[in-house]
Structure formats: structure tokens, C-alpha cells
């Protein structure tokens, strides 16, 4: 039985469950934000989950584990409990789920998505390695200096929200670099030449390319991700230029990743690498008639060769 670790608002997990049902595959979904609705016990002999319908999964029944979005950070508040209870509980819950992932990895059952991938393969590591495979914009990180004059992009190294209410995000955007306060750390990148965004979903060696139908100029944005309702901007299949799929495959192997969504900006036929998201979302790109992307993810999750070994590392070349 497939154990799907996620949350209750994960639309991709909804589709995966549906596809399992269609195939007659057993699946048990643990939604971390609904944890109070489940019953759970774990001893040296193994663990068991029960959900409110009476459905259950025991550790000996688990044939594969897929780490989707078992995070309390971006999910609705769970029922009950005071703020103090939450502080006392949430780290414990996150740790239990992480230990389930470790348990699965030790048995070759953790598949395709590496829980620590987003942290292990950070922005800087992925950009350093990408230079060997794709055109990439120059970048620098620093503080205690006045940045050279010129229009440059500012990116974040992390995805943490900002502001007292932690309700704002710093999207990729261009600034006059010389105006960046020397007192703060900044990730600064040259503005990539290009006009159209593209993205590639990588699923254990398979590449699914998409590009936006409209250019950034048409949209009036510097980065499509800042657009609310970005799914209403039409995307279309993008046949990858010759050799790009091979380079993506080699790049992902260098990073030790079996899954991810890579973002590019297109300058004519040239794909300029921007970033890779080791647990990137892809649902809005899929065809709801047949769900080919979700099917590819499910196929890979069920394939023992997609197991996450725990020995993955990023291999860098010496420049």
C-alpha cells in the first residue's frame, strides 16, 4: 500500500489518490493538518495509522512512501489547542513525519521525492552546478558592501515570509542594485536576457516541458510567479530543444535529485537556467482529461528504482 504524506489542501495528492483508486491500488493518505482526526501508535515492532473511516495502514503494509507536502507551515490551523499547545506540538508532529520518512528510506520505500531536497540543494549550489550545463545569469551574495550600479535581480535564498505578520513574500524582482542597503544580506543576479518563461517537470529521467504562451512583456511582469491566478495565463507544451533533456538529466543526476521542476527563461531557442525546485508543484500544468504528469509521478513512486537512498549528494566540478 502506498503511504502518501501530505496535507488536506494538496490538490495533487487528491489526483494521486484518484489514480490509485482507478488502478485498484491501495493508498493511505496522512494529512498532517488533520492529525487530530487520526489515531497513531508506533513501537519497536512498527506503526499503525487509523483514519476516521476505519481505514488503516500498518508499517508492514507499506510498499512505498511518497513525500508530498506534510507541512504545518502552509496548511490551515488544526482543530483545538491553544497557541502554547501548538508551539509544544507542531515540532513533535513534524519530527514524527520526518522519522516516518527516515524509516521508509532505510527500507528502500521512500520514493522519488527527497524530503530534505529543498534544503540540501540550495539556490547557490544549484546555480554553481548549473553553469556546467546551461547558460546561467551571474550572481553574488553579500553584505557590508555597496553593490555596483545597475539594474539587477534580487532573489531570496529561502522561502520564508517576511513582515511582522509573516504574511508577505519577496518575489524575484529587479532593483537598482546600488540602492540595496549594505546592512542586509542580498542575493543579486544579473538580469537574464529572454522574454518567455518555461518550466520542465523532471520525473526520474523523463522531462515534460511547458512554456508560457505570452511573453513577460505581454504580461507586464518581471517574473510570472508574482502573478496571482498565474494558472489563468495559458501554458502550452514546449518541445525541448535538441540535447536539453539530456543536459537536464545529467544536471539532476549531478544534484542527486530524481524529481524537480526547473525554471528557465527563453531567449529565442536558448534556455537560460533560473532555478530548480526539488519538490516543485506541477498540478496546474497537467491535462485534467488524463493527468499524464500525475500518472508519471505515480508510476515513478511505485517503481523501486526511484528509491531515495539517503546518500544523495551534490557533485560540483572544479572551475
Amino acid at each position, binding site marked *: 500500500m502506498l503511504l502518501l504524506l501530505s496535507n488536506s489542501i494538496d490538490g495533487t495528492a487528491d489526483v494521486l489518490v484518484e489514480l490509485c483508486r482507478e488502478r485498484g491500488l491501495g493508498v493511505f493518505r496522512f494529512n498532517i493538518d488533520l492529525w487530530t482526526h487520526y489515531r497513531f501508535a508506533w513501537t519497536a515492532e512498527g506503526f499503525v495509522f487509523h*483514519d476516521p473511516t476505519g481505514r488503516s495502514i500498518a508499517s508492514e503494509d507499506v510498499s512505498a512512501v511518497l513525500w508530498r507536502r506534510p507541512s504545518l507551515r502552509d496548511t490551515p490551523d488544526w482543530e483545538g489547542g491553544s497557541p502554547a499547545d501548538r508551539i509544544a506540538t507542531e515540532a513533535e508532529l513534524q519530527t514524527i513525519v520526518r522519522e516516518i520518512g527516515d524509516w521508509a528510506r532505510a527500507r528502500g520505500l521512500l520514493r522519488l521525492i527527497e524530503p530534505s531536497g529543498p534544503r540540501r540543494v540550495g539556490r547557490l549550489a544549484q546555480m554553481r552546478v548549473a553553469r556546467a550545463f546551461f547558460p546561467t545569469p551571474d550572481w553574488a551574495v553579500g553584505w557590508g558592501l*555597496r553593490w555596483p550600479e545597475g539594474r539587477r535581480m534580487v532573489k531570496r535564498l529561502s522561502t520564508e515570509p517576511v513582515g511582522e505578520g509573516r504574511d508577505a513574500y519577496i518575489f524575484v524582482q529587479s532593483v537598482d542594485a546600488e540602492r540595496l542597503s549594505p546592512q542586509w544580506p542580498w542575493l543579486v543576479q544579473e538580469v537574464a536576457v529572454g522574454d518567455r518563461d518555461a518550466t520542465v517537470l523532471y520525473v526520474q529521467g523523463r522531462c515534460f516541458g511547458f512554456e508560457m504562451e505570452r511573453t513577460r512583456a505581454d504580461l507586464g511582469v518581471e517574473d510570472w510567479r508574482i502573478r496571482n491566478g498565474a494558472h489563468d495565463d495559458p501554458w502550452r507544451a514546449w518541445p525541448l530543444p535538441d540535447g536539453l533533456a539530456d543536459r537536464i538529466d545529467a544536471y539532476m543526476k549531478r544534484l542527486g535529485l530524481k524529481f524537480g521542476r526547473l525554471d528557465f527563461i527563453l531567449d529565442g531557442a536558448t534556455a537560460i537556467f533560473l532555478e530548480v525546485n526539488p519538490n516543485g508543484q506541477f498540478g496546474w500544468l497537467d491535462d485534467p482529461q488524463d493527468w499524464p504528469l500525475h500518472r508519471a509521478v505515480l508510476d515513478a513512486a511505485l517503481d523501486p528504482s526511484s528509491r531515495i537512498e539517503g546518500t544523495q549528494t551534490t557533485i560540483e566540478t572544479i572551475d
Partner: protein
Amino acid sequence: MLLSASVLLLSAATPQVATDIVPLDLGTRPHIVELSRDPYDWSLQQGLRPSEMKLADSTANCNTATMQTQRNSGTDQVHDCGFD
């Protein structure tokens, strides 16, 4: 072309001035999209999406997913910008 790290550090860190950009100046609050008022369907192990809602509503980057729930007798606003 950005300069090397050692050359970048040759420039003195001039004192901050009022027109300098600090991180909060670049912060944006995402627009809120109401996703669903429906409870989770335990029998199907799926969230209930109204017919007019697309999967994209909960998976496009940097939408703000808002779940109007009864949990804790309040409304939870859930951001998914942190995901990608």
C-alpha cells in the same frame, strides 16, 4: 557582469541612507483566493473541490490559497507561496 567576491568587498560599505532599499521594501502580500468551504472527504481521501475550481487553484505558484474552515471557529488563510 558581477565582479569577483574580493573586488566586491573592495567597495567600502557606505552608511545606509534613507533611500536605500531594505528587505521589507520588497515584500508583497499575495492576493487571496478563496479555495473551498467544504470539509475534507474522508471516504474518498480527497479534498472537496467545487466544480468551478481547478486543480490549478491550489497548485499554481504563489497563489494564496485560502481555506474558509470551521477549525478553531475561525477562518484560516493559507499561503502556498512558500512551496515553490
